[in-house]
């Protein structure tokens, strides 16, 4: 028993559970804060289940809450007493209790990027460093919530259709709860992401096609197998996990919202749920209700949401064959694209389309100036900060929060794109890369000779 118990996780979960028990009085416990599911389009209500499609109109199902019940125990003081991690915001998440087994997800740092801010042309910039999550991306948040419900529903396996970050997150979460994992990916995905999922013991299924082909296949596989696909039949729960980004940012800023929130946009799910997270905090009075402009970043080679934004329409024209190094955002047929466009437009924000070379430059800039190494989506996001500033969406004096959603070790080839010389070839550092000295003999004289040449 002792050998099989992950001490650190259990301790956190137990501490969190104890806090929640203390904070919940008996009266509230009789009325559920999670009231069921409702269709985002037609409002059709149904009980909580592994379901994602409205039986009446085919629209997307969402979890619904009784905010009055949730708010009765969800106060600044109560939250601040709780253990770190996403479960400190339990009342606004679609699970009954913090799970007994869960990775240590969330409570990632919010870092003042004073050196990068002037390079991007903004006055005040914070980076939400979600490279620090257990599987090195923000997907751990969504997957933790989906997994908690998958375990509660008793699914036989966890699965996902992934552009890469989700692969690692699903595989890691499945390992933590002892479920088999099936990870479906485009066959040409970055090797580091494939290896990452394999390391956690997942079965990786490469599919000859784009992410959208993988997704379509998985819709049918989910129907036929009953596996818990975190981003398909568990999607109503999964999507809610991204709200914790907003809760953490608000708490870290001292219970307030920023002027501008900048995030990558793939399906648009995280982008829109972060907005809902801030909205919920305002509705409960935990933060003052102030306007937030939402800026989304897409890769120019797969930018159906940015295109719809520029055209002034909500209709998303799907991209058949994405052409970008930003694989984590290469969704040609984004489920929440329409909602992402509406959010950007209605809030006075924008959706920016970023060329790959600019993304690579942004990765290099944030790494050398702030000590944070993001994967490609993070580069897109930071380039979107600069683009939104040029567009006038970001103004003088604005406080900007940018979400760095994944770690650069997942996409090592991206960093060197556009550099005049040097590259990473076959996973080995090739000579001639900027910053890389030639191989020297292990003698002080050789070092001094090189230093003399270099300076």
């Amino acid at each position, binding site marked *: 028993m002792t050998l099989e118990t992950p001490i650190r996780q259990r301790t956190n979960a137990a501490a969190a559970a104890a806090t929640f028990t203390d904070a919940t009085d008996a009266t509230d416990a009789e009325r559920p804060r999670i009231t069921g599911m409702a269709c985002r*389009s037609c409002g059709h209500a149904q009980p909580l289940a592994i379901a*994602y*499609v*409205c*039986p*009446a*109109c*085919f*629209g*997307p199902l969402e979890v619904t809450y009784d905010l009055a019940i949730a708010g009765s125990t969800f106060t600044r003081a109560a939250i601040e007493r709780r253990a770190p991690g996403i479960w400190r915001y339990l009342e606004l998440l679609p699970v009954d209790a913090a799970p007994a087994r869960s990775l240590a997800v969330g409570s990632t740092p919010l870092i003042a990027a004073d050196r990068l801010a002037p390079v991007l042309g903004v006055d005040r910039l914070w980076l939400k460093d979600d490279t620090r999550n257990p599987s090195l991306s923000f*997907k751990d948040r969504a997957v933790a919530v989906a997994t908690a419900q998958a375990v509660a529903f008793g699914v036989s396996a966890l699965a996902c*259709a*992934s*552009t*890469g*970050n*989700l692969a690692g997150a699903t595989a890691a979460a499945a390992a933590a709860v002892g479920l088999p994992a099936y990870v479906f990916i485009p066959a040409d995905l970055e090797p580091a992401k494939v290896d990452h999922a394999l390391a956690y013991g997942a079965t990786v299924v490469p599919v000859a096609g784009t*992410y*959208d*082909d993988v*997704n*379509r296949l998985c*819709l*049918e596989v989910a*129907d036929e197998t009953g596996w818990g696909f975190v*981003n*398909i039949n568990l*999607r109503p729960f999964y999507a809610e996990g991204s709200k914790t980004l907003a809760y953490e940012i608000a708490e870290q800023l001292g219970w307030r919202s920023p002027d501008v929130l900048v995030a990558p946009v*793939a*399906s*648009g*799910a995280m982008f829109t749920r972060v907005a809902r997270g801030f909205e919920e905090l305002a509705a409960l009075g935990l933060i003052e209700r102030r306007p937030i402009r939402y800026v989304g970043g897409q890769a120019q080679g797969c930018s159906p949401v940015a295109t719809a934004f520029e055209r002034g329409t909500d209709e998303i*024209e*799907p991209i*058949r064959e994405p052409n970008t190094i930003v694989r*984590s*955002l290469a*969704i040609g*047929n*984004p*489920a*929440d694209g329409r909602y992402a466009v509406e959010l950007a437009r209605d809030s006075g924000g924008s959706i920016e389309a970023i060329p790959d070379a600019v993304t690579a430059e942004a990765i290099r800039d944030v790494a050398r100036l702030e000590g944070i190494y993001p994967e490609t989506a993070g580069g897109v996001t930071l380039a979107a900060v600069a683009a939104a500033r040029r567009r006038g969406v970001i103004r003088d004096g604005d406080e900007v929060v940018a979400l760095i959603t994944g770690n650069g070790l997942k996409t090592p080839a991206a960093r060197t794109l556009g550099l005049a010389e040097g590259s990473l070839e076959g996973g080995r550092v090739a000579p001639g890369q900027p910053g890389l000295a030639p191989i020297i003999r292990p003698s002080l004289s050789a070092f001094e000779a090189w230093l003399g040449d270099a300076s």
Partner: protein
Amino acid sequence: MSTVRIPPTLRASTGGAKTVDVPAGSVREVIRGLVTAHPSLHSQLIAPDGDLNRFVNAFLNDTDVRHLQDLDTPVADGDTLVLLPAMAGG
């Protein structure tokens, strides 16, 4: 005849059938034929303006019909049309 694969959410309207055979034609005609055979599918599949509901994606032999000729795409005998929720996201 073409074959339409029915997702679980819609099978209550097809008496539990996973597939329905419909005379070939255009995608529009095949969907119309399906709804004629199983009228309770109308509210789920057809928008008020008579078009395909925006939450439904149609795939002809595994290709999104929006990448072909959309609802005018010809469907031949032996082709398979799959109707799936518009639900994609990493």
